[in-house]
């Protein structure tokens, strides 16, 4: 019987190597796989390229991974917010690289990677500095830029319910980048609030089919970034 469960977050992230490209799910605090991120900090691998919409908040989760010097480059759409201090500081010091991608283009590039589409055209960024150096082409009388797919070696995703085959559901807007990042990574690692038996998720309600998932670890009471920050916590 297929069973993708692994028993701990540390086991789940143990093989992520130096220099890997890692997608991290979540939009701001919602959907951020804090336990997997902290396990990656404990694991200690460096020189990562991380793909996330943002750059983390406070000094926990993704911000802590960055603050711990493990990230060489961020690919994201919005690298600063009122609660993000770590990335802005390192960026100003020239200690971390940034590839800025508009949010919809980021999502579509990730989806394209999962769907076997090496490139596509979008009107987003036409006529702006973010289109510089990109191929521009007219379709139906309107300019579009060509964008390439965006793949990763690993994805770290948080979901609500999973089964041993890797079928997933999410909770509300914590869904965000989860389903497309699961598709785009060679190895997708998921922390789930609840692991249920095969067949307990209605096949009509599966959001991520198990084919896109490699490892599942149950984290029954996941911490939430906002709660940690409000409590003044930092990691490690």
């Amino acid at each position, binding site marked *: 019987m297929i069973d993708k469960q692994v028993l701990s977050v540390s086991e789940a992230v143990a093989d992520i190597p130096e220099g890997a490209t890692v997608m991290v799910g979540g*939009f*701001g*605090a*919602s*959907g951020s796989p804090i336990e997997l991120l902290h396990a990656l900090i404990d694991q200690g691998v460096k020189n990562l390229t991380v793909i996330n*919409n943002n750059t983390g908040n406070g000094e926990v989760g993704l911000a802590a991974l960055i603050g711990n010097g493990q990230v060489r480059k961020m690919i994201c*759409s*919005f*690298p*600063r*917010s009122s609660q993000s201090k770590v990335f*802005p500081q390192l*960026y*100003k010091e020239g200690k971390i690289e*940034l590839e*800025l991608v*508009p*949010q*919809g*283009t*980021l*999502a*579509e590039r*990730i*989806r394209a990677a999962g769907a076997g589409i090496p490139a596509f055209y*979008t*009107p*987003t*960024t*036409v*006529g*702006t*500095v*973010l289109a510089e150096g990109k191929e521009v082409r007219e379709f139906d009388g309107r300019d579009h830029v060509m964008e390439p797919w965006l793949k990763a070696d690993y994805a770290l995703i948080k979901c609500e319910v999973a089964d041993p085959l890797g079928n997933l559901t*999410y*909770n*509300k*807007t*914590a*869904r*965000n*980048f*989860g*389903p*497309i990042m699961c598709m785009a990574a060679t190895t997708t690692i998921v922390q789930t609030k609840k692991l249920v038996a095969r067949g307990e998720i209605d096949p009509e309600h599966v*959001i991520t089919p198990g084919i896109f998932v490699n490892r599942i670890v149950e984290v029954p009471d996941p911490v*939430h970034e*906002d*709660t940690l920050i409000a409590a003044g916590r930092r990691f490690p």
Partner: protein
Amino acid sequence: MSAGWTREQMAARAAQDIPDGACVNLGIGIPELVAGFVPEGREFIYHTENGLLGMGPPPAENERDLDLMNAGKKYVTAVPGAAYFHHADSFSMIRGGHIDVCVLGTMQVAANGDIANWSTGAPGAIPAVGGAMDLVQGVKRIYVITQHTTRNGDPKLVERCSYPLTGPGVVSRIYTDLAVVDVTDDGFRVVELAPGVDFEEVKNKTGASILPSD
């Protein structure tokens, strides 16, 4: 007593131009206030680009769901008839032209409809674009709500944007504290003046030529 519209009045005026049944995406700041001024007999459906159609008002603090946020990362609610979806589907709605109206704040808007609202382009600033460039290219009608001038009195309605563009030629209409202004083939044209404001004042505070209403 200063003449002109308050932030709330600007939002209420913009709401008047949104048709019944419209799918609407509201930017951060004054645009968010539009939801409080839906005209009698109309219903708008709110889209938030992080994956929710049918966004409702903010919850009471003790009723927050930590997994239910909007694109501005504030806690929100979902109305009956809402739907959740992932980011690629959400931006398909935007890029694919399915959202009827987007109301945005801005730093500058030009007489040809160019908008600059994502970056000052200052050296050393950390660029952050989010979904702004997708919204201005994809949504059917782009409305802007903004003070007519900056705090320093510099015009925000200009001949040509000096800040880096978010998108070229995309803005339809602008709601300021002084007037409602359309972007037309002939440049800016006043549609309506705020109470106590005359065309001369609007003209003087606009950084481009502007036409009076017909």
